[in-house]
């Protein structure tokens, strides 16, 4: 059936549907097209024999939520849902208390009688206004097809979603009146639409100047420019307003959309020196330096890895590139693959530590985690060993040895390694807790011995394996006559 053809003819030969337009758009062609479309859809209602258009059942529908149905209907036919709708529920009584709208216009009631006597008001009247009488407006206000609307009327029409021609507002003063009217009704949608019009028809300098004294509108324009990504104009505006820090951050934000590492680096380089707050300026500088280093390290390591000559890369192939990783992750990477390198090398942990002023605590934590992962216990040991000027060695941990133990344990260090550090935990209770938890029997036994706590030692004896060296050790201590037990 060539529906289109027939309807097209009918459209051109009849004028009775003329009033049925949704927008008073300036663009005449699209208006016609729309009407035609509308007519097509209307025909179906008119011809439809279905009398059930007004039917609605106030049923409970326990199953069949919308999101669930999307999946269902997308795959199968809709027949499957019959029977899921259960009967009426309590709610029906509530319905009767609901205030009926004065005019319950619906399309079907219009067309049943083949009256085509409706103006554009009828359609816009349905919707929220029909049950919200307070929002309804007197009919007299609909002076349709009058093209000479005041700013107030124009804004009202726009609020209702009708596209109006703003070109009539030629003088700056008219445009500003229009804008002020929109701001007064707080409708962001309309404000933005007018701002777009002004942005298109006004010189930048004038637009900026006028918005500076109209803060609400100004905020909407900034939000809009962000939304559509008009970076350049946005930056110009912020600079004009002397909001330098915001402008700097806005510019900096743009790096996120640059995928290529080299281009991103260059972009960040351009951000260094922008008027950030003093703390942020340091961070942005560091961000740039870090990416610069990462690019060098990445190129070098990719090469090493593919050459296949370096043991560490063969044994532990890299899971991902180091580009754009946070500083601490980079440090971990460096401690993992480049631990022994001299400070002169960009990829060395020492160099990173120095360049970015990484605090001792942070450095030790990261290095420990990396070396423990490689089970390089010697390195772990060296990390906490300090020599004083007499050449004596001493163990020191800026993070506290209980943390060291936890990290080692997480990397499944053997008991021999673990107990060495448990022993170094200063707080006795913590030490006992950790030693018991990780089965460092020696430490537990020695600690109880030092505490001269015979009872606890006897209790612990029951926990260790029968005939184990630990048991022997406990027995030895218990039978010693040298110790003056406190209990």
């Amino acid at each position, binding site marked *: 059936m060539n529906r*289109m053809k027939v309807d097209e003819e009918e459209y051109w030969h009849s004028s009775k549907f003329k009033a049925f337009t949704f927008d008073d758009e300036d663009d005449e062609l699209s208006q016609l097209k*729309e009407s035609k479309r509308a007519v*097509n*859809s209307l025909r*179906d209602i008119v011809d439809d024999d279905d009398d059930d258009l007004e039917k609605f059942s106030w049923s*409970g*529908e*326990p199953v*069949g*939520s*919308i*999101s669930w149905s*999307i999946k269902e*209907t*997308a795959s199968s036919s*809709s027949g499957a*849902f019959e029977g899921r*709708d259960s009967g009426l*529920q*309590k*709610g029906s009584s*509530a*319905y009767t*208390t*609901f205030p009926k709208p004065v005019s319950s216009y*619906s*399309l079907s009631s219009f067309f049943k009688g083949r009256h085509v006597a409706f103006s554009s008001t009828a359609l816009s009247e349905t*919707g*929220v206004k*029909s*049950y*919200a009488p*307070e*929002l*309804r407006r007197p009919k007299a206000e609909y002076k349709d097809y009058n093209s000479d609307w005041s700013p107030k009327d124009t804004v009202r029409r726009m609020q209702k*979603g009708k596209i109006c021609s703003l070109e009539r507002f030629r003088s700056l003063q008219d445009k500003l009146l229009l804008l002020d009217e929109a701001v007064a*009704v*707080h409708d*962001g*949608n309309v404000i933005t*639409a007018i701002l777009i019009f002004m942005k298109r028809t006004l010189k930048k300098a004038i637009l900026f100047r006028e918005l500076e004294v109209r803060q609400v509108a100004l*905020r*909407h324009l900034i*939000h809009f420019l962000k939304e*559509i990504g008009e970076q350049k104009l946005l930056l110009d505006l912020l600079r004009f307003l002397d909001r330098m820090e915001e402008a700097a*951050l806005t510019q900096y*934000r743009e790096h*996120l*959309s640059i*995928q290529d590492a080299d281009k991103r680096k260059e972009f960040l380089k351009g951000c260094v020196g922008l008027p950030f707050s003093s703390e942020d300026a340091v*961070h*942005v500088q*560091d*961000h740039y330096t870090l990416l610069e280093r990462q690019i060098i390290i990445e190129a070098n390591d990719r090469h090493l890895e593919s050459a296949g000559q370096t043991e560490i890369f063969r044994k532990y192939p890299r899971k*991902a*590139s180091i580009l754009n990783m946070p*500083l*601490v992750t980079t440090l971990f990477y460096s401690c993992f693959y480049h631990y022994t390198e001299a400070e002169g090398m960009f990829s060395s942990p020492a160099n990173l530590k120095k360049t970015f002023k*990484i605090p001792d*605590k942070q450095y030790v934590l990261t290095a420990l985690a990396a070396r423990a992962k490689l089970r390089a216990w010697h390195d772990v040991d060296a990390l906490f060993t300090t020599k004083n000027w007499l050449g004596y060695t001493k163990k020191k941990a800026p993070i506290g040895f209980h943390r060291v133990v936890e990290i080692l344990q997480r990397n499944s260090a053997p008991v021999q390694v673990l107990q060495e550090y448990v022993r170094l935990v200063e707080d006795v209770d913590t030490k006992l807790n950790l030693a018991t938890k990780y089965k460092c029997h020696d430490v537990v036994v020695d600690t109880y011995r030092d505490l001269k706590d015979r009872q606890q030692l006897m209790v612990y004896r029951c926990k260790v394996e029968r005939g184990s060296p630990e048991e022997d050790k406990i027995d030895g201590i218990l039978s010693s006559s040298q110790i003056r037990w406190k209990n």
Partner: protein
Amino acid sequence: MAAHLSSGRVNLTALREAGRRELREFLDKCAGSKAIVWDEYLTGPFGLIAQYSLLKEHEVEKMFTLKAGRLPPADVKNIIFFVRPRLELMDIIAENVLSEDRVRSPVRDFHILFVPRRSLLCEQRLKDQGVLGSIIHREEYSLDLIPFDGDLLSMESESAFKECYLENDQTSLYHAAKGLMTLQALYGTIPQIFGKGECARHVANMMIRMKREFPGSQNSIFPVFDTLLLLDRNVDLLTPLATQLTYEGLIDEIYGIQNTYVKLPPEKFAPKKQGEGGKELPTEPKKLQLNSAEELYAEIRDKNFNAVGSVLSKKAKIISAAFEERHHAKTVGEIKQFVLQLPHMQAARTSLANHTSIAELIKDITTSEDFFDNLTVEQEFMSGIDTDKTNNYIEDCIAQKHPLIKILRMVCLQSVCNSGLKQKVLDYYKREILQTYGYEHILTLNNLEKAGLLKPQASGRNNYPTIRKTMRLWMDDINEQNPNDISYVYSGYAPLSVRLAQLLARPGWRSIEEVLKMLPGPHFEERQQLPTGLQKKRQHGENRVTLVFFLGGVTYAEIAALRFLSQIEDGGTEYVIATTKLINGTSWIKSLMEKLEPPPF
């Protein structure tokens, strides 16, 4: 389905029905068979208004999610897009429409339903893409306030807080005002309006203006609400940052409740024997709806989690006893009686089984060491201990790379409880965060600063202790089992926002003028004139009804606290709650984070 909406003091079914009617009217405009293409975000909120059956009655035969490319085949006359007014969605629609024309075969009509409203900007975009002319109906569906429960309405506008307090965009306030006008059209003019905060002031102004501009028909409905209280979220930035400790609050903190539904790990819900659901795949998360239609849930949702266990075990005994009854049923009449009760008993048993499983899941988490440590730090901050120095636990969490949102939540909490951090402390946290999580988070930290969540202490003054003491925000003796104060919802901390509501009802804000001045934004009172016939003559002992509107979001714990106040004997006030969005600390902070591009791998 909607029974739970009529259970409260105000029958919110009317609001839901209004929404359904509007939807039907729109669907009927597009005559013939239809397919709906959904902006996925909208399916949740719409589910609270209508089920698929309603759409089906109006010839909706297929439903798809909005995706780029070509629309799936469907032998229907109309394609209707249900979308939020967003530019990126317009681009997808344009792509759909354009690729459709090339196929040619059956001619389908296109329509768009904008939710919650049309946008000139979007229509312009469609025009630019050359498809505006192909869209027949473009309408708006003002889903401003969606009824969630008998006493709860939400606009589900996820970006409302960000727009209002970061970008100063008042569009969502405009919607809030419109939603309130609709509400007044259905439930009568609200005679008294109180408010605190800049946004509250704006909404009240808009309401008054709208009323003046549409005097068309006098509202002749007897007012249901006595008072409207508008509260800015930024008056109380503290509360959402703390971990909620009510049952519902914890479910939301841990699993996230979306439009009254929660998705849970399926393991604990595996059907024990021949369950009604048949063979359930244990890989799919278990989806449950949570609202007051479920008797048991209504009873426990607002309790402190520590009080939930005893209720559940009590219920278990009652149900077991009820099932035991069958042995005593001797006569045919008794057996019949028993059989009649069976469906109800079975439903109760299922409900009990579900909540026992959920409680177990939550317990696993609340008994963990990390949860305890985190809570300890929060409570220290809220009671004013050590808020002015760097916190070891936060430091440890950063070192162990706990999720960034968790870190931000704690740091912000500390900042708010100290009226801003000392510059040295703030700089330290910032550096640690940027070095560990990436420098690009400078942007997020700046957003938090703009929103007032994370800031340097101005002029070295800390107002929080005064506010805490005057408003009794920290209570040392709390009763979690049988609470006597709202502070039970955070096991010690009484939400500031709810205290404001409580003090307004009794003895009035005049008693706390000094503190009100310390909180941001103006406080005000407005009266809306009622025709003489509609002025309320309150029966002796009848409670007042107050609508509390949280602009920028509300947490489940705050809702629980207000419900607690509604239920107090001689409380004198019952509360209905409205908000722009149901939030928790995590979803809230997330909405303020700069959207970072996903890493390239």
